[in-house]
């Protein structure tokens, strides 16, 4: 049976004014909040646990279990922090979600705050996304005016306030403890754990940090029930998710489907690889996840299956590359991203990405040495599992996996520039004229 799309979060994105309160209400918006306020908070947490919802930010930690880590209320504040610092190359799900339907997130925030006993939530948004920032501010204002937020949410007597905070442009602030430091006004660098945020998070108070899509999934679970949600997906990877296809495909975009869908099915939906070309390699979950090749097109895109195949589901950011693409060039671009975004706190990530970038630049230019592949692999080995947080780990994934599948392209880098082997203009999605291709 072929998997079909399951539009939940994206069900009304095609509405001309999908982001407004009116549109959201027309699509049963905020009904789940009303339902939730009639439930005991513990019952909401139980429902989320029963749904099997796992974090949609990449790590896939069970959401209900995370909420359950909060210590018993002590009378002091506790916080919900929504991680909206979406910045990884290829990852593009939270941004369109917040742009097209910010009220889904706001409703999820309100329900979650009620469930975990938080009176204040923060949405930490990637700072570059000014338009999303405006949409969120507008949505919060609308929700507050309508009584879905504020000091007496829907007459329940509960206070739920939402602060939308724009970051200052650092990928590291997607790491939850760096995010908390940044939100507190400090330098965004990861904290030593423990204490974990559930115990001492924002302002040293118990804090739940969840991804945008995770929180946005909560209203649908409350509205339709945990069984409805767990009825989608496979095994321990229940529910639906946004799959973001980009690159050499005919119709790139967000495809909302149950977990466990395959790339073959998604390619069918998006019209396939661009005309006249064939799949060479792809990322299942963004640039931090080891790449896959054409042999993985039937791997079910759920946490377990992707893991078993040697990569990670991550953020379901499927970057698709056809046979015109130099894997060395792609890997270098990703590595430059990590070198640029390494926060600098720990040695392996800070120095390692600096080194890897330089080696890869030489390999791209055809000036590689016989030792370079070993140096790349060994340096990755010295970063992976040695750095302070997962940023460094992620930086090694594209390199080690690319050498695993396309070693010969790196070997060719000892004598031939990548732009000769794979003229860059051929892989351009938008034709760029001869000049650019000739110069590189």
């Amino acid at each position, binding site marked *: 049976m072929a998997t079909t799309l399951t539009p939940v979060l994206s069900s009304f994105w095609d509405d001309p004014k999908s982001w407004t309160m009116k549109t959201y209400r027309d699509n049963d918006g905020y009904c789940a909040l009303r339902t939730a306020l009639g439930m005991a908070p513990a019952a909401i947490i139980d429902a989320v646990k029963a749904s099997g919802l796992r974090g949609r930010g990449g790590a896939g930690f069970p959401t209900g279990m995370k909420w359950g880590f909060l210590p018993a209320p002590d009378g002091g504040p506790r916080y919900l922090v929504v991680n909206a610092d979406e910045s990884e190359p290829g990852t593009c799900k939270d941004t369109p979600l917040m742009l097209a339907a910010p009220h889904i997130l706001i409703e999820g925030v309100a329900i979650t705050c009620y469930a975990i006993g938080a009176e204040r939530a923060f949405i930490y948004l990637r700072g570059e996304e000014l338009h999303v920032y405006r949409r969120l501010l507008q949505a919060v204002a609308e929700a507050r005016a309508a009584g879905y937020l504020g000091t007496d949410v829907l007459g329940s007597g509960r206070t739920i306030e939402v602060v939308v905070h724009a970051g200052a442009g650092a990928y590291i602030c997607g790491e939850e403890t760096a995010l908390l430091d940044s939100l507190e006004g400090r330098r965004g660098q990861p904290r030593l754990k423990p204490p974990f945020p559930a115990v001492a998070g924002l302002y040293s108070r118990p804090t739940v940090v969840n991804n945008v899509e995770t929180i946005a999934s909560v209203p649908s679970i409350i509205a339709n029930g945990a069984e409805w949600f767990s009825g989608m997906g496979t095994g321990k990877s229940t529910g639906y998710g946004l799959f973001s296809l980009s690159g050499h495909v005919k119709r790139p975009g967000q495809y909302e489907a149950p977990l466990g869908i395959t790339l073959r099915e998604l390619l069918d939906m998006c019209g396939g690889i661009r005309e006249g070309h064939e799949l060479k390699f792809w990322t299942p979950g963004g640039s931090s996840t080891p790449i896959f090749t054409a042999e993985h097109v039937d791997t079910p895109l759920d946490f377990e299956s992707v893991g078993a195949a040697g990569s990670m589901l991550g953020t379901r950011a499927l970057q698709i590359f056809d046979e015109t693409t130099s894997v060395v060039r792609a890997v270098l671009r990703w590595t430059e991203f990590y*070198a640029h975004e390494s926060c600098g706190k720990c040695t392996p990530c800070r120095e390692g990405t600096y080194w890897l970038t330089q080696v890869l630049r030489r390999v791209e230019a055809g000036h590689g040495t016989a030792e370079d592949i070993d140096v790349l692999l060994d340096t990755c080995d010295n970063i992976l599992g040695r750095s302070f947080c997962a940023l460094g780990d992620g930086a090694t994934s594209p390199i080690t996996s690319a050498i695993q599948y396309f070693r010969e392209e790196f070997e060719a880098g000892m004598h031939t520039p990548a732009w000769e082997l794979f003229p860059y203009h051929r892989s351009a999605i938008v034709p760029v004229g001869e000049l650019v291709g000739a110069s590189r």
Partner: protein
Amino acid sequence: MTLTTGASASGLSATQPNPQDLVKVTIDGIDISVPKGTLVIRAAEQLGIAIPRFCDHPLLEPAGACRQCLVEIATPDREGNLKKMPKPQASCTITVSPGMVINTQQTSPVADKAQQGVMELLLMNHPLDCPICDKGGECPLQNQAMSNGRGESRFVDTKRTFAKPIKISTQVLLDRERCILCQRCTRFSAEIAGDPFIDLQERGAGQQIGVFSPEILGIADGRGHGSGDGTGHGNGHAHGAEHAPGAAADDPGGIDALAAASAIGVSQGPAELDESGQPFSSYFSGNTIQICPVGALTGAAYRFRARPFDLVSSPSVCEHCASGCSIRADHRRGTVLRRMAGEDSVVNEEWNCDKGRWAFQYAQLPDRLRTPMVRDAATGELVEASWLEAVAVAAAGLRDAAEAGLRAGVLVGGRVSVEDAYAYSKFARIALRTNDIDFRARPHAAEEEAFLAHAVAGRGLTVTYADLEAAPAVVLAGFEAEEESPIVFLRLHKAATRRTPTAVFSIAPFASHGLVKLNGSLLTCVPGDEPRLLASLAATSGGQGLDEGREALRLPGAVLLVGERLAGVPGALSAALSLAQATGARLAWVPRRAGERGAVEAGALPGLLPGARPVADAAARVDIAAAWGVDHVPSFAGRDTSGIIAAAAAGAALVVGGVDPDDLPDPALAHAALAASSFVVSLEIRDSAVHQYADVVLPVATVTEKAGAFLDWEGRLRPFEAALATDALSDHAVLDEIARELGVDIGAADTAALRAELAALGEWDGQRIDPPQVAANSPATRGDGVVLATWHQLLDAGRGQDGEPYLAGTAHRPVARLSAPTAAAHGLAATGHVMVTGRTGAITLPVVVTDMPDGVVWLPTNSRGSAVRAGLGSAAGDLVSLSAAGPDAALVAAGTTAASTGSAGSTTPGGHA
């Protein structure tokens, strides 16, 4: 498994832990039991297993930044099966758990590979400039690269480079390309000193330590683009960095710095700047150099001066204040090249202040005395003389004066060792047969002597550093800890910033820089009003805003610290004693100078013999006479410093042991008295203002040249040996010679014998001097007058800091503080200058409007352009007048540059601060 977050985990508790609090772990196959909460890296140390590390420091919170200390760890699961953690763990952040099995690089190939990998990455961007680096030879990176690194680098690409060096201050320089970003310095600054004067900026490979700099941050107006591009794009990156810090290093630029300061929300104007024009950094900045595990942070004074392996290191004790820091003097061929903080967990832990670290050039200046001098009767000039001749002339002069009824008084000064003070005490009583002896070269009173005799002398270790740390509350009365005893401040800061903080209160006219860092509460007090405020605290109610302090002082373990300033306020020390009695708070006196507590114990006071024995008590005199082997000691009441000066003005002779007349309460009178004195003997290390009047000048040894001991404010003996082998004599040896010439043996030739003799005197078991009960003065009618508040800054024009311009540049810029209404009432602009006129002169300084009582002006006591005693002739609590001063006056004040404060000469009197 648990990771540590508390300070308790960083060090081992001083007390023996209960067996049930011990955790058994296995490291490299060896079992060891360590207290719960111990970090793995510390547990390994106990077994002698050295895990390489950089960011780890036992007195700092764990960071886990450098990743050099990775080890493999396995812990038992619920069923007791050992489960290896998937990744190597940083042993500096993880605490032991029962049954934990740790494999270090000694036994784990994974840990060894991880450590080698981190080391290679650290060295990749590190310059190979060890041969010209100050750290070479004592460098943890160099050493551990040899022990835990590979011989050759595989890195063949472009190293990250920076312009070098950045001036963090005039004293602290930063070579960024050597930095391995371990964050020891930034953590020290924030956690220990409370002065976050440096921090990380930029990110990735472009991450660097620095002070706030619009250039480096790339936010300067139309100037440069900074080095914001953190990708480490080889040359492009280095190019960006070259311009920015270059400007910062060449010209710290007061205006830019002020703009920078205001950009980060600081509005204290010149009070936020140091003497070089940069934002004030810290009194403790030198510690960052000492704990830097590479050669990134260096001190300007020592940079490129020596190789560590050419230095001889001698343990010593700091002479600059009563904190009692253990230090290490590093010297080469008879010259001290640098001083480091020594380790002493009960006193200074591993820290010291910048004054203790860098103010040692005074002993090596050209005006250092090496040869005795006597005044030539024919020419009236001091001429060099042999020791034999000088001692003979001194003895003869003192004998003649005594025979003429002009018996000499002895001014000891506050910087002498315990043994020297004891020798002065014996010399006065046996050789000169007088009780005219006083160590107090500062405002003093009979009330203070009674206070010292009653509450301080012979009391031993009543309040210690550990007591401060454990105290629920500490009240500072007339005592600015950061300025007057910086290590007391550090310990208070440690106590005030922990999870259950010590509450600090300060009785002062305004909240100082130090008090703010202690999260302290100000008990606002106009100088002179201290007795009334102390009495209000002792009472069960009354006084505005005193309830919190009142309750805090009554908590078990609360401490009341009084400083030297209270001596100048009639009734204040009496009230402090009453307050301690009323509340049960423990009381400690924290003098400013290193020798004062020892001088109290040695009996260098007119009414007090050694060991807290009152002169007025016949039994005490018999006691001392017996111990000294003399018939009797003088019984008549002695004169204090002011009395001795008054007597000298009438012709009495003087023996002066390192006292600057301008430190005395009335410098004009002191100069007149020295001139009028029939015979003046001076024991000094350098040329001094006394010498224009002296008949005999006898050179004595500095702390590094002699053995001895100080008693710190706690009453703890801080013994030291001579670091340098010289022929310089300690004061006591010189006094012994003079006494011999006078035909008396005072037994003061040998340091160790003196110390043993003083110790053998034992405690006085007789009646103590009664506590003083001096009434407070009634509040003065101010009229148009303004009350003067003043105290010393740690770094100022004191002569002990002479010859060290790099240090002088880091001092607080002298300012006059007053309230906005006071400024308005006297027509002063908030950013202008004020002329403060006292009894004998005036001082002009920039105005800093401060939240403080109206009708009060504060001046630093002895800073550049602000010599309150000599220049103003006024003391704290006196009335002065204010007037606006034009920019011309300001220019005069700023004319003396920071670099020349050390030898400011007659306009800037120095003290043995």
